[in-house]
C-alpha cells in the first residue's frame, strides 16, 4: 500500500540536527572538563544514539496510528501526572515531585513525554475541524484549552514551571492553524491579561524563589548570590566572549565554575563565551535552517493532521529556544527550560528525536493516499 522510501527521508534536516548535536557534545565536554560532571559528553553521545534509533522506529509507524491512540495516550498521561503528585509514588527531589521511581535506578518523568502526547492529541482534536476556510467554534476553543491546561496545571503543581510552560505553544499553534477567529484570540488575550493582573497584584501566587527570579531579572544586582548571580555570571560569560570567543576549553567563566550549570540550562552562555558572537550566530542560523525545514515539511504534508504534528514540534522548539537563549542573554527571567539539541539530558533529547521521527514519518507519507 504505502510507498515509503528512505529516499524521501529528510536527510538534509537530519544533517542540520546532527551538526547541532555534535556542537552540543563538544560544548558539554568543554564545559564539564574541570568539574565533577566530567564525562557527561559520552553519556550525551549515548542518549543521541538512542534518540536516533528511536527516530527511525518512529518514522516507520504510520502517524495515523498515533492519531488513533491519541486519546488513550492522553488519558494515561493525565493518570501518570496525577500519580506523580501522590507521595510514595512520585519521588520528591529538591522539593518537587517530578519522577516516578521504578527502582533499580530507573526514573521516569511523565511531564516530558506528555509534550509529545499533547502534540498528537491536539492534532487529533483538530482533525476535521481544521482546514482552509474552517473556523473554530467557542466550544472547540474551550475544549482545546482544557486539553492543554489540565496537564499544564498538574505539572505546575509539581512544581515545574519550565516544563509546564512548554505545553503552551501546542495550544497557540493549534488554535492559530486550526482556525481560531481573531475576535476569539483577542477576547482570550484580554482575559489572560486581566487574570494575570489580578495574579500579579495578589503576588502570593508565586513561590518565593520565583518571585526572586523575577526581581533578579528586573534588577540583577538585587540578589547577587542567588538568581541574580546566575544571570550576572551568564551575562559576563556571553559578553566577555566578544566577537570571536575565548576559544574551546578557554572560557574563564565556564571553566572557573562561575557560570552555573554550564552543561544544561546555561550551555548557550558557555558556548558564547568560548566561541563568541560569530559561533553563537552560526548556532542560531542552524536553528533557523532546522525550523524552516520543519515548516516546509509541514507544508508538504498530505493532510492537516500531519501538518499539525510537525507545527506542534516547531512551536515547542521555537518556544524553548527563545526562552532559554533569552534567559542566557538577559532578555528573559531564569526558568529551567533546556535548549533543544544543545542542553545535556536524556529526556530532552529523546523527546526531540521521537518528534523528529514523526516528522520524517509525515514527510515520507506526503504522497500517500
Amino acid at each position, binding site marked *: 500500500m504505502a510507498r515509503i522510501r528512505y529516499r524521501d527521508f529528510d536527510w538534509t534536516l537530519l544533517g542540520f540536527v546532527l551538526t547541532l548535536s555534535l556542537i552540543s557534545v563538544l560544548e558539554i565536554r568543554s564545559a564539564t572538563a574541570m568539574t565533577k560532571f566530567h564525562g557527561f559528553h559520552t553519556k550525551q553521545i549515548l542518549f543521541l544514539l538512542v534518540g536516533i534509533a528511536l527516530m527511525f522506529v518512529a518514522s516507520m509507524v504510520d502517524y495515523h496510528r498515533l492519531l488513533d491512540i491519541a486519546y488513550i495516550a492522553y488519558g494515561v498521561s493525565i493518570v501518570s501526572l496525577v500519580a506523580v503528585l501522590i507521595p510514595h509514588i512520585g519521588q520528591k527531589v529538591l522539593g518537587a515531585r517530578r519522577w516516578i521511581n521504578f527502582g533499580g535506578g530507573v526514573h521516569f518523568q511523565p511531564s516530558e513525554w506528555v509534550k509529545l502526547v499533547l502534540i498528537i492529541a491536539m492534532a487529533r482534536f483538530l482533525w476535521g475541524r481544521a482546514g482552509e476556510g474552517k473556523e473554530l467554534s467557542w466550544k472547540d476553543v474551550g475544549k482545546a484549552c482544557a486539553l492543554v491546561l489540565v496537564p499544564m496545571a498538574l505539572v505546575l503543581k509539581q512544581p515545574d514551571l519550565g516544563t509546564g510552560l512548554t505545553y503552551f505553544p501546542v495550544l497557540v499553534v493549534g488554535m492559530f492553524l486550526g482556525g481560531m477567529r481573531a475576535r476569539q484570540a483577542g477576547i482570550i488575550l484580554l482575559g489572560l491579561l486581566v487574570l494575570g493582573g489580578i495574579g500579579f497584584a495578589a503576588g502570593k501566587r508565586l513561590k518565593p524563589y520565583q518571585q526572586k527570579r523575577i526581581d533578579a531579572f528586573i534588577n540583577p544586582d538585587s540578589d547577587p548570590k542567588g538568581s541574580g548571580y546566575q544571570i550576572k555570571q551568564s551575562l*559576563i560569560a556571553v*559578553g566577555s566572549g566578544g566577537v570571536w570567543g575565548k576559544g574551546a576549553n578557554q572560557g574563564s567563566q565556564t571553566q572557573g565554575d562561575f557560570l552555573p550549570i554550564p552543561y544544561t540550562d546555561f550551555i548557550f552562555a558557555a558556548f558564547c563565551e568560548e566561541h563568541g558572537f560569530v559561533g553563537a550566530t552560526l548556532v542560531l542560523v542552524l536553528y533557523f535552517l532546522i525550523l524552516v525545514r520543519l515548516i516546509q515539511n509541514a507544508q508538504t504534508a498530505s493532510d492537516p493532521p500531519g501538518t499539525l504534528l510537525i507545527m506542534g514540534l516547531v512551536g515547542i522548539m521555537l518556544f524553548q529556544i527563545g526562552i532559554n537563549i533569552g534567559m542566557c542573554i538577559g532578555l528573559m527571567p531564569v526558568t529551567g527550560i533546556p535548549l533543544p539539541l544543545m542542553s545535556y539530558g536524556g529526556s530532552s533529547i529523546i523527546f526531540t528525536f521521537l518528534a523528529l521521527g514523526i516528522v520524517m514519518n509525515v514527510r515520507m507519507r506526503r504522497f500517500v493516499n
Partner: protein
Amino acid sequence: MELENFRREEKLPPQKLAIAQYVVAAVLLALVAGMWRLSVLGADSYRVLAEQNRVRKVPVLAPRGKIFDREGRIIVDNYPSVSCYLLREQTKNLDADMPRIAEGLHMTVDQIQAILKRYAYAPKYQPLPLKQDITPDEQAFIEAHRTELPELQTLDEQRRLYPRDGFMAHVIGYVGEVSENDLKQTRYAFYSPGDVVGKSGIEESYDEELRGQDGSRDVIVNSHGKEVGLMGQELAKPGRDLYLTIDLDLQKAAERALEGKTGAIVAMDPHTGEILAMASRPTFDPNQFAVRLSKAYWQSILDNPDHPLLNKAIQAQVAPGSTFKVIMTMAGLQENVAQNLTVSCNGGATFYGHFFGCDRHHGFVDIHNALPYSCDTYYYTLANRLGIDTMARYANSVGVGVKTGVDLPEEAAGTMPSEQWKMKVMHDKWYAGETISVGIGQGAIQATPLQMARALSGIASGGVLRRPHLVMDKELSADELSAVKQTFPGSGEKTIPLTPENWQIITDDMAGVTGPIGTAAEAHLEGVDFVGKTGTADVVSGRKKGDHNRNTIPNAWFVGMTPRRNPDIVVAVLWEHGYWGNNSAKLAAQVITAFVNKQREKAGNLVKVAAVKPQVGLGDAAPAADANSATTTPADPDAAHSPAKKDNE
C-alpha cells in the same frame, strides 16, 4: 486507515504557515540582536568584569564540640592547625610545579603523586588535602609563591586532641573522613566527601551535636587567583560541647586496673543509669585516626587477636557464669520456690541421667548460703524447678539478652535462651537438661559487662531498671534527648518484679561473697560495705587434658556494689581468661576504693580505704588458684570450672 474527514487535496491555510516562518525569523533575529548588544557592544566592559569579578567560596570549618567529664574536666580538646590543600583546577602544569611544591612543603614528589592517585576519583574542583599540620615555615612558602603556585591553598582547621595511651578510647571513639559507603546512608545524606565525621563511640553517636555547621567566605579573586576582596561570609557555627557522666577519677582507676589485661570494667550509678566509668582493654590511640592513619598502625590493630577496636564493655558477649546466680536468686524468690528449697550438696547431682558437678560438698544449702557458697547443686535444682522460660522471663526483665540502649553505636544484645529462642534460632526443641547449666550462667547464655552492671543496678536499686547512658541528660535539650532516646533501643525506665523482702535477702546474701569466707574474700575492703558476686565462666567445653593454651582459661567475672542497701555505685568486671572470679573482684575493689575515697574526701573524712593488692597479671593469679583452697584461701566454688578440676567430669 481511511481519513474520511480529509480529502487528499485539503490543506491547512498556506499563508499561515508562511507567517510561521516569519515568526521564527523574528524570534531568532531578536536573539541575535540581544547577543550583539552583549558580545559586540558590551564586550569590553564584560571582559573587565570577567577579569575582576570572580568569586570563590572558601570553606570555614566549624570546630567540633569539646568533651568534658561530669565535673567539667576536659577529656577531648581541639588544637588549631593549618593544612595545605591542592586546587587542581588552579594549575596549568602540575607536573612541572611538583618538584617545587615538594621542596617547599618538605615532601617528596612520590608522596604528592600518591595523594593524587588516592583521590583520582574526586571531582576536579574539590581541593585535595596535601599536608596537614604544616609549619609556619611551610605556610610562609605558600604565601610567598601565591602567584607562581596558585594551586596551593592553606586552610585553618581545628583538629581533635584525644587523651594519650588509648585512655577512654572506646567510649570517646574517633573521627575520620566520611567514607564513600557512609555517604550512601541516609544519615550521612547531607555530608560531602572529605567531611570529618565521628566514626565510633560518643563521636559517632553524637556526631550531629558535636559537628556544628561549617561556614564559608566568598572571596573575590582576580584571574591570577589572588584575593582582592571579601564579598560576604557565613560564620561557622561551632559544635556543641558535651558533658559525659564519666567521673575521670573513677575512669582512671578502672583503666589502671585493666592495664596489661584483656577485658572491660563498667561502673554506673544505679539510681540514674549514669555510667561513671567504662574501660576496655586492649585499647587503641584515637589520635592515630584523627590525622592520616598509618598503614603500620592499622596493621597492628588488625593483627591483634584481642580486637583493640572492640568496646568489650558493650560488645563482648560471653557466658556470665556464677554472676548470673544473683538473677537466679531473684527469680527463685519471686516465684516462691527458693524460700522453701533446701538442697543437700554432695559435690553435684544427677539430672536427666547426667551428672552435674559442684566443686565441694556443701552439705545442706538453703537460700541464705547458696549465693555466698555459690553452690552449683543448689542452682541446678532451682533451675530445674523454675524451668527455662521462667528463668528467661526474669533474665530479660533485668536486661540479659536485651540491648541496654546505651548511647553508643553497635551495642551487642547478648543471648538469653528460651524454648522459643531455640526453636527460632536452632530449629530444635529445648531439652530440660539444658536448663540445668543455664542455671549457673553457662550454656547458651551470653551477656555483656554493661548488661550485667545494669541487671545488678536494677536489682540493687530496689527494682527499677534504667537506661545506662554516657551523656548527661541535663546537658541536652528535651528535643535532643528524645532524639537520642529514639536512636537507641531499650530506652526508658522499667520496673522489675521484686518485693522489698526479697530485695533484702539478695543484697544480704551478696555480702557473704566479699565476707571473710566468701569467694571474693581477697577483695574485702575494711570498713566499706562492698558486696557482690564472682563468676568463673568456662570458655571452651571440649577442652583436652593438659591444655594450657591461654584461650582455654576461664573468664573471670565480678559484679559488685557499695553500699549494700541503695548502692551509690555498681561495678561489673570482665577479665577475659582471668582465671577465676576473685581476680576480677580485686579489680572492682580498686574502682570502689577510688569511689569511696573520693566520697570521704568530699565529706571531710580523711580516712582512706586501704588499697587492695593490685593484680598485675596471670602470673600472680595462678599460684593462688593452685593453692589448697580448703585451708589457706576461701573456697572458690567457681574453681569447679577451672581446667584442672573439670577434667574429672
